């Protein structure tokens, strides 16, 4: 990373840290959304952008992660900081199982994608019938007043949630930056580019793909934990829905898969689009269901047809931060 890039990044960091002190609640909520997409997008990017496996079922890790931590809190009063370890463990295991079966039986490309979708859909319907976790009626965590900060139970002001997700997104960025320029990054990209050649160079492709799956799944599960405590309620129909999976992948695709800043930029654009849609609706006073998703769809279509590598590579060259 050159000096320009570092200084831009530092400025962005300062802005983000100071935001809660100057922004309205609405702006803060948009920023929280941006950071959530930045986090989950980066988690997904490890599997796709780096290791080249297209998963359209990442909502399953959001869902399992969310429900695990929420259940521990709801049924046993265990706080999310302890509960998240169960989320991590379950999702790591789930990712490992899916990966092991898929890679062992040479399920790749489109078939792999369909497999991930099928697993997420299976879970969605399954959790609809899982009455101990609320079933289709939903799981509701106890609502506490939003003006007191109870960090231990993840209850508190919007600002508290903002900093939590900011920390997660920043940690993810640091992890990706570290990984990209080390052996894992090289090996994953080699597998993505040409798996046969990678194997001939001594890379144990099964093991490395599994690693990508497990890391991606575990990271996404923490996003689920965040969701559960931020919204205070969970419905299988929402958290496991394929729309969540699509939202996760939009950021990296629009921003640029496989790059370091692509998912972050994409998430920002996505949050802006969502905000823009809400503004339009507020201004006209109309009830337009589906407008936000429609805009997402058009943005995705536009990026794929016009800028298939995503917005970041083109932008980076303009800003002269590209290597």
């Amino acid at each position, binding site marked *: 990373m050159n000096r320009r890039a570092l200084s831009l990044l530092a400025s962005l960091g300062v802005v983000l840290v100071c935001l809660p002190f100057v922004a309205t609640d609405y702006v803060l909520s948009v920023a929280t959304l941006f950071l959530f997409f930045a986090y989950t997008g980066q988690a997904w990017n490890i599997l796709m952008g780096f290791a080249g496996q297209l998963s359209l079922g990442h909502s399953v890790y959001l869902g399992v992660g969310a429900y695990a931590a929420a259940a521990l809190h709801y049924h046993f009063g265990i706080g999310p900081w302890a509960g998240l370890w169960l989320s991590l463990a379950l999702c790591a295991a789930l990712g490992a199982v899916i990966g092991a079966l898929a890679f062992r*039986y040479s399920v790749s490309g489109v078939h792999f994608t369909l497999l991930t979708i099928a697993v997420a859909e299976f879970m969605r319907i399954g959790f609809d019938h899982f009455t101990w976790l609320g079933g289709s009626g939903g799981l509701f965590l106890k609502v506490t007043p939003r003006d007191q900060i109870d960090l231990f139970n993840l209850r508190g002001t919007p600002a508290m949630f903002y900093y939590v997700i900011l920390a997660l997104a920043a940690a993810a960025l640091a992890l990706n930056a570290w990984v990209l320029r080390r052996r894992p990054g090289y090996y994953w990209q080699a597998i993505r580019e040409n798996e046969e050649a990678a194997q001939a160079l001594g890379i144990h492709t099964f093991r490395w793909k599994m690693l990508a799956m497990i890391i991606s799944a575990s990271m996404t599960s923490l996003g689920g934990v965040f969701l559960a405590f931020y919204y205070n309620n969970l419905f299988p129909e929402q958290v496991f829905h394929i729309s969540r999976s699509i939202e996760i992948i939009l950021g990296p695709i629009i921003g640029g898969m496989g790059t370091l800043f692509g998912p972050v930029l994409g998430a920002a654009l996505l949050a802006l689009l969502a905000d823009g849609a809400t503004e339009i609706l507020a201004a006209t006073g109309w009830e337009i269901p589906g407008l936000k998703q429609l805009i997402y769809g058009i943005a995705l279509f536009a990026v794929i047809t016009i800028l298939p590598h995503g917005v970041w590579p083109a932008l980076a060259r303009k800003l002269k931060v590209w290597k």
Partner: protein
Amino acid sequence: MSIDLINFANVIISGVLTGLVYGLMALGLSVIFGVARVVNFAHGETMTMAMYVAVLAFAFFDINPFVALVPIAAVFFVFGYFLQAAVINRFITRPEHIQFMLLLAVAVIMTNALLLIFGPDARNVQLDYLLESIEVGPLLIDRGKFYAALVACSASAALFAFFRFSHTGTAIRACADNWLGAKVAGLDVKRLYSISFGLGSASVAIAGCMMILLFDLTPGAGPAYTLLAFVIVIVGGLGSMSGALAGGMLIGVSEAMAGLFIAPSAKGMFSFALLILVLLFRPRGLLSDKS
């Protein structure tokens, strides 16, 4: 015969009939996926669009779906043809996942445009003369399902005949078997892909006209149908047209059975579990004869 057995038989027949309509839907995907190698993630959404058109035709012009399906099929043939010709054909040489995401974008646009235009309320088409059941001995067959299945069979037969006997159909089959060879032999591959996509869209449109008689319609129904189509095509064997029909019937029957024995809302789980198992252990399909 005991009542339970009759009930059971009725459920199976119902499943087979519904399954034939599913089969036509999957047949459309089989043509698109099998020939143009397009992972049509907008397949269910295309059918949903056709269903809305059928609803409109009935509501505003009093044309029932059995008649409306002819112009609707024609319209969707053109739609599919141009989608392939103008958009997807440019992506043939790109990596598979790019194409997948392109169609995903199309699907998202379609679903939400429908939501925007028609709103989230459920709709259907009610034809009074379909309410009476057909009695065959002790068995009761739903008239609507029966006629829908009949149409589905006819459409499938027409499609089979086209691929088997017509010049263009043979050319398309050659294309599917050997893309490069077909090009070398002078076939206009891109045009054949467009025709295939058009045919696939027309098939799914006809299936939609029949589906509206069987199920309620909401804008969000698309993805579920897309996935169902993929389940059937993969279980039945990619590229196998008879496999698509057989797979459709298999899914139709198993959904009906699952509805009988387990909670009806859980029947989707069965289809997805089946897809997972087939993808892992027998990706060429349960019913495929290809080696």
